[in-house]
């Protein structure tokens, strides 16, 4: 993965370099062990492997997330005179062999190499916001500086706040936090608002369950966000900025703290930045676990020390925000785009993208695709390209069913939308939203009614309870959806659901309630047959809803090995050993799937439960 950024970092090419992802994803896959193992092996073989003056004690280089989480732990090895090599799914046990063969004997270990299919993961991407992620050391400001870091800030201070706003406007940057409001316009409002004290807030609450773009950005390239914040503060005339980070992201908070300290030391933050007379301070605020706090007015109440309840707008934050002062609030990714615009110029920035959606968008591609991870794509790319080219297709060659974009406020798009381009307006027209970038792929085994129920459950849990439509309307919707999934749906349910969806949408106080019906409406629109199967035939076509399925052993395939009996936590399996075929007792079975994955002969099958009386639906 050699690129421009990397070349800027390498000043001494006579050294062996090893890069290991130590982001949350990497660590979850065991990167820490791999890291230590490399350190130990290199030490005991007395191999000098270090990147220039990197402060890492272990002589192994730590990086942030490079995106391809499915292959974690990913390790890049660069031996002078040899091509750069990436190893996938590395474990500590593989390290001695890699060190011995590749580094000492100069023969890459073929069997562990990342294969061709995975190279395609990067082909259709345009990594601009993520350009440094996985390449630089996020805890060392010198890496950031060596890759043009803080030059945009210097330029901004030279050209002045008005020109900065103009550039951002011309570039056509739209908010990456959900709604896609033009950023330059928002800045201009806040700059024009009356008042001496103004604030800028960076929204790093990232509440969409199934998304981690902002986390990765903060963990892998924190200075890019800081630089965007400082430029934004300068443009609107704020001397104080806040970063509101959810506390589920301890590593991101840690790295932000380090970055803020280093930026201060080098004079990019604090008083009289780069001798311009501009002062700026940044404070980190930790969230406490409430999805609604991602909504801007709720977020501000939370910083003020109250319950995070949203307020009706207007007044907009640009007039009356934090502590009643004009406030500008932007998402992490929006701000990380700013240095790119200022440094490269608006015209260059706007070359990528569609007419109304410029630049790139970062997505967390997850679910049933082969290559899960963090991706950055040009606006206008199609869903098909994301799922099949970048995502490498569906797990186990199953059939694609839907892609959920935009999280709890977004929608599920099916096969007929594979050619839909990803841009703000096309997605809204299709019934989803760009959202912050969650992108969950679903296959034939995912039940769409269950997904609608899942999101409604989430919304119910997170509704702050201030307004009636959201507090009670979503509860009624959840009850109906739960009933349908449990096989107890009645004929009127569909109509009631539709009506409730419309009412909640039109009358809720804040964005949470107003968008809450989206997952229901979109699944309803594109997967109505699944709703009907649940209600009419008491059947779950995806075989996912617990009440509508049961597990059954095919006697001919059962080898009485007793593995299922051992693994069953609820003692629901009779026989299964000493030559007696296993038999699952339906009433005791909790459908945890433990036996299913354990059975060596795949003798256990999921089948429709004996259906109750069929229901007539118009």
């Amino acid at each position, binding site marked *: 993965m050699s690129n421009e950024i990397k070349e800027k970092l390498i000043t001494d090419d006579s050294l062996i370099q090893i890069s290991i992802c130590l982001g*949350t*994803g990497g*660590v979850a896959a065991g990167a820490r062990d791999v890291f230590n193992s490399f350190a130990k092996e290199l030490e005991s073989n007395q191999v000098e492997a270090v990147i220039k003056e990197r402060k890492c004690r272990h002589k192994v280089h730590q990086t942030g997330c490079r995106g391809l989480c499915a292959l974690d732990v990913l390790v890049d090895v660069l031996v002078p005179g040899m091509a750069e090599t990436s190893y996938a799914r590395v474990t500590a046990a593989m390290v001695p062999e890699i060190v011995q063969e590749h580094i000492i004997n100069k023969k890459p270990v073929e069997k562990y190499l990342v294969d061709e299919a995975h190279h395609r993961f990067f082909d259709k991407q345009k990594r601009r916001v993520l350009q440094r992620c996985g390449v630089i050391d996020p805890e060392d400001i010198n890496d950031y500086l060596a890759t043009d870091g803080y030059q945009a800030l210097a330029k901004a201070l030279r050209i002045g706040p008005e020109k900065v706003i103009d550039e951002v406007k011309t570039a056509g940057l739209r908010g990456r936090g959900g709604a896609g409001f033009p950023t330059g316009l928002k800045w201009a409002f806040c700059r024009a608002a009356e008042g001496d004290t103004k604030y800028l807030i960076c929204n790093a609450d990232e509440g969409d*369950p199934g998304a*981690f773009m902002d986390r990765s950005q903060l963990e892998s390239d924190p200075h890019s966000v800081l630089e965007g914040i400082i430029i934004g503060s300068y443009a609107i005339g704020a001397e104080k900025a806040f970063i509101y980070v959810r506390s*589920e992201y301890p590593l991101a908070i840690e790295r932000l703290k380090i970055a803020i300290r280093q930026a201060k030391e080098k004079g990019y933050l604090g008083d009289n930045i780069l001798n311009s007379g501009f002062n700026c301070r940044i404070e980190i605020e930790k969230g406490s676990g409430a999805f609604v706090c991602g909504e801007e007015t709720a977020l501000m109440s939370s910083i003020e020390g109250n319950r995070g309840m949203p307020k009706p707008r207007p007044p907009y934050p640009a007039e009356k925000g934090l502590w009643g002062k004009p406030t500008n609030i932007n998402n992490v990714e929006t701000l990380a785009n700013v240095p790119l615009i200022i440094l490269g110029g608006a015209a260059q920035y706007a070359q990528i993208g569609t007419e109304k959606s410029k630049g790139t968008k970062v997505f967390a591609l997850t679910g049933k695709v082969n290559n899960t991870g963090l991706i950055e794509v040009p606006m206008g790319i199609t869903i098909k390209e994301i799922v099949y080219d970048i995502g490498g297709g569906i797990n186990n060659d199953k059939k694609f069913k839907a892609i959920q974009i935009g999280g709890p406020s977004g929608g599920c798009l099916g096969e007929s939308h594979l050619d839909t381009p990803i841009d703000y307006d096309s997605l809204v027209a299709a019934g989803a939203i760009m959202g912050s970038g969650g992108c969950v792929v679903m296959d034939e085994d995912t039940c769409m009614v269950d997904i609608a129920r899942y999101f409604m459950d989430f919304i119910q849990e997170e509704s702050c309870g201030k307004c009636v439509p959201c507090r009670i309307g979503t509860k009624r919707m959840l009850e109906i959806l739960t009933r349908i999934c449990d096989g107890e749906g009645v004929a009127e349910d569909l109509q009631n659901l539709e009506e409730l969806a419309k009412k909640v949408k039109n009358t809720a106080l804040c964005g949470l309630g107003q968008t809450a019906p989206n997952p229901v409406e979109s699944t309803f629109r594109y997967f109505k047959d699944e709703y009907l199967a649940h209600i009419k035939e008491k059947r779950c076509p995806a075989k996912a809803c617990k009440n509508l399925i049961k597990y059954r052993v095919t006697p001919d395939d059962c080898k009485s090995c007793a593995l299922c009996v051992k693994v069953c936590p609820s003692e629901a399996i009779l026989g299964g050993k000493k030559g007696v075929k296993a038999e699952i007792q339906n009433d005791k079975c909790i459908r945890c799937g433990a036996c299913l*994955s354990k059975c060596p002969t795949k003798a256990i099958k999921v089948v429709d439960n004996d259906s109750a009386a069929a229901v007539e639906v118009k």
Partner: protein
Amino acid sequence: MDFISRTQEILDKHSNNAVIPVLQDVQNEFGYVPEEAVAHISSVTNINKSRLYGILTFYSQFYLKPRGKNIVKVCCGTACHVKGAEKNLTKLKELLKIKEGETTADGEFTLERIACMGACGLAPVVTVNQEVHGNVTSDKIDKIIKK
């Protein structure tokens, strides 16, 4: 445990009136927010107890009761849900004989469900204390819990 004096120490560290960071620190100190601490914060800051409890019950990260020695969190975010998080949760409930949000009688385990850890690429995810486990299957659960 001397709740009052340690709560006072935390209050001393926060000079401004931001109560949420104070409560976060109290939670970190004791693992939950004890009644005594709330009473003390209220009397020092002149903030009504009812307002403090309003805040404590609003945010899901505050706990009013002590929790188990090991906190097992099952991620039920969208990516994990699609990849079978619900099954893992069912299995854990059965194994530990508790419901989500509860603590085992011996105080060893607390079982919680959370919405997204931010490690969705490795879904489904289960965390035990600070340790994150990716691609969790029912087999792995046995191993994780034994540790």
